[in-house]
């Protein structure tokens, strides 16, 4: 026979005003299996907790039910108290007679009856409770950071500075990401590269950071604290250890007319190249698709001129396996392209803007390269078609963003600010030039942001026209911008020399594929989903994986850096213990009954169920059963409700407990 103790709380008068607590305690005493019951004014107070502890010892109780407020309020409190008196904390439960009873009913008689019922049900549950021990999993104190933009760099540096090892993986030949492409940054107009490149160098020099550039994630196995990550290091055709970064190969390469992606195809690069002068690492890579040696087998100039003999045309991709305990995903964003690619893009076309066929219609990132001192024009604003300085520039915001009918309903967040910045940069470089901005709303929340935007309008004379543009077309070397000014209620036609589109911020190409490898969820736009929009903005629902930067949603640099540091803090917290402790509400398989149908595996949202082979002593396969990895299991119990043979059970919510509660109705 169980020996349960029932403790009924008055909660001052919060409960006792509507519920006859003495009667509830009295009726509880009559329940089979209840060895002790009492009521008390404030169970959560120190005297209340001491009462509980004392009763546990005196009455030799083997289970506790506190009928009081919501378990969401004080379950931890009472479990701790019970534990300190020697009871397994999971044998202590709460009956909610405040939020679910005294506060929502006025009829004292009915409320008291309900409270007694709640106690009765919960006693049945406590009786059948099991002592559970927190699950511990070992933690590998190394982190993987995916993506070497400002988010990944910040997270990697923070974790490395805390003394933990970091593996930083970047898809491109150099770290730096989009921030390295920017000219100046809002709201202070400080040079992006000036603040970015020192951080890049820090990454390269940090003893705790292993940098894999030109590498991608191939496979991710394991779970929080214990991931095995396979990284594909793409063949660079240059041996990193031998290369001194002298740059002779790139200057001697005969193939020099390849559009440079880093300069948004405005400038040219060679077939063996470093994306930009400040690249980290400063090791070139051969673009095999454009290299004469790879295409026709004739050339080999780079190998001939390379002093340290670092060129290796035979180099193959290699796979590296790294064990890590946590992952920070920082894969960033891409800008939507208005080119006609409806099959690749969720945005349903921008034919009215010429589908990218008008050469002087460019996007914001291309404007950044035009404005950048290290860009293809040396920082002069010159339009791509004829290299002339544009006298009138029209900026169009919300291209793709906030356009439900086009397929994207979200706001890209950064465009209002960077467009304001662009108008300023333009005015600073072309003093008599005029900037026009077509906008829906100017969204400038952020420290110093609205002042910045006002400056663009009031000091730098940018003309802001509230309305959208319906068409762009070429006429006599100009681009005619047809739009509307909705504040004045007139149609506007502007002859522009250059048009800059603030195109939508989208998730990186392949973001969905990476998410599938990592087992994290993503929204319909392929942005990664955080575990909770407000209270867990950095964590993924999958334990041990954290998000930083624009891969989770459009973000500017300050927000990105904040989130990256937050993700790093989460990783460091995780690494502060040798063993990971977690709530033991997890599913367990009864291997005797399991027939290995693996329905549970199909429904498990965490991928926690794996197949397990049971063999006899001779090693013959007896059967295959399901096995739940307690480190990964989230404890939802979907497997249990699905299992046809009832051979998987969720601790804390067993069929036996629930059925007993229903019986007691």
């Amino acid at each position, binding site marked *: 026979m169980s020996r349960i103790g029932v403790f009924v709380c008055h909660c001052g008068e919060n409960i006792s005003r509507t519920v006859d607590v003495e009667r509830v305690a009295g009726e509880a005493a009559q329940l089979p299996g209840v060895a002790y019951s009492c009521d008390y004014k404030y169970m959560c107070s120190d005297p209340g907790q001491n009462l509980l502890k004392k009763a546990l010892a005196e009455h030799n109780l083997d289970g506790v039910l506190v009928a009081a407020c919501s378990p969401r309020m004080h379950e931890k409190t009472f479990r701790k108290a019970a534990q300190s008196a020697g009871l397994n904390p999971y044998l202590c439960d709460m009956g909610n007679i405040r939020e*679910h009873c005294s*506060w929502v009913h006025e009829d004292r008689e009915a409320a008291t009856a309900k409270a007694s019922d*709640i106690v009765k049900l919960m006693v049945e549950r406590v009786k059948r409770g099991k002592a559970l021990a927190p699950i511990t999993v070992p933690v590998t104190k190394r982190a993987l950071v995916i993506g070497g933009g400002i988010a990944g760099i910040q997270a990697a540096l923070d974790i490395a500075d805390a003394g933990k090892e970091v593996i930083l993986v970047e898809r491109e030949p150099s770290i730096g990401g989009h921030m390295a492409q920017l000219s100046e940054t809002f709201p202070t107009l400080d040079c992006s590269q000036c603040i970015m490149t020192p951080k890049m160098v820090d990454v390269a020099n940090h003893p705790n950071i292993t940098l894999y550039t030109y590498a991608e994630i191939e496979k991710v196995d394991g779970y929080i604290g214990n991931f095995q990550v396979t990284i594909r290091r793409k063949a660079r055709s240059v041996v990193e250890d031998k290369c001194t970064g002298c740059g002779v190969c790139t200057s001697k390469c005969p193939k020099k007319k390849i559009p440079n992606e880093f300069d948004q195809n405005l400038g040219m690069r060679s077939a063996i190249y470093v994306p930009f002068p400040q690249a980290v690492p400063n090791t070139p890579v051969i673009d095999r698709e454009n290299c004469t040696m790879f295409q026709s087998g004739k050339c080999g100039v780079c190998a001939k001129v390379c002093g340290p003999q670092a060129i290796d045309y035979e180099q193959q991709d290699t796979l590296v396996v790294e064990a890590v305990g946590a992952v920070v995903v920082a894969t960033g964003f891409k800008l939507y392209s208005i080119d006609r690619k409806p099959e690749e893009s969720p945005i349903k076309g921008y034919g009215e803007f010429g589908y990218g066929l008008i050469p002087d219609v460019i996007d914001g990132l291309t404007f950044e390269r035009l404005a950048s001192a290290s860009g293809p024009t040396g920082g002069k604003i010159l339009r791509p078609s004829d290299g002339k300085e544009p006298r009138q520039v029209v900026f169009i915001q919300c291209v793709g963003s906030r356009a439900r009918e086009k397929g994207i309903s979200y706001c890209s967040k950064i465009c209002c600010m960077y467009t304001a910045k662009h108008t300023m940069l333009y005015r600073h470089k072309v003093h008599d030039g005029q900037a026009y901005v077509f906008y829906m709303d100017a969204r400038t929340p952020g420290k110093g942001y609205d002042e910045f935007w006002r400056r663009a309008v009031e000091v730098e004379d940018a003309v802001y026209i509230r309305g959208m543009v319906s068409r762009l077309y070429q006429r006599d070397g100009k681009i005619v911008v047809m739009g509307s000014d909705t504040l004045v209620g007139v149609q506007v036609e502007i002859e522009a020399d250059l048009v800059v589109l603030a195109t939508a911020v989208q998730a990186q190409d392949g973001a969905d594929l990476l998410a599938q490898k990592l087992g994290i969820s993503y929204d319909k736009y392929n942005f990664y989903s955080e575990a909770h929009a407000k209270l867990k903005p950095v964590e993924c629902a999958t334990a041990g994986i954290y998000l930083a930067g624009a891969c989770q949603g459009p973000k500017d640099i300050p927000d990105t850096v904040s989130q990256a540091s937050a993700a790093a803090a989460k990783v460091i917290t995780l690494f502060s213990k040798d063993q990971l402790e977690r709530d033991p509400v997890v599913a367990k398989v009864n291997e005797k009954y399991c027939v290995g149908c693996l329905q549970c595996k199909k429904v498990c949202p965490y991928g926690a169920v794996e197949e397990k082979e049971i063999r006899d002593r001779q090693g013959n396969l007896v059967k295959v059963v399901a096995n739940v990895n307690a480190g990964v299991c989230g404890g939802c119990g979907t497997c249990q409700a699905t299992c046809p043979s009832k051979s998987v059970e969720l601790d804390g919510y067993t069929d036996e407990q629930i059925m007993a509660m229903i019986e007691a109705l």
Partner: protein
Amino acid sequence: MHSAEKKHDFEPKVVAFVCTWCTYAGADLAGTSRMQYPPNVRVLKFPCTGRIDPVFILRAFQKGADGVLVSGCHPGDCHYMAGNFHARRRFAAFRVLLGFVGVDLNRLQFSWVSAAEGGKWVEVVTELTERVRAMGPMREFKELEQEEQWSATLTTPELQQAYESI
């Protein structure tokens, strides 16, 4: 809203199977907001609607429930990512089955109540209670169980004692 003064001839038993993250918290919110609803409902907490086995619903009806409510997070909001989707599928099929065996489906309600929807919780519970009250007691399964009691020997003193000794 329910008036406490009003006396009824029949007080139905309503059982609510709820998930801990959304609907349980929503019911808590109704409490902290001091909203009022009929005291007929008994709440059973689950980690997730995905954990709720249709057998529980059957058993509840058998054990005297006149109405059953199953409620969890809104689709897409599941704390466990997809548990409520599995639940939704399961119950869509189960409902048909329950109708087939002759249970009036007005006695069974599925709903999504988020942690922010204290008001919705009150609405759902009140509506179901009043609906079931108007329908009168659910007899079908109870009669079945009586038959079961007749044919089986669940009520021998030994078994009763064993049951109570748990």
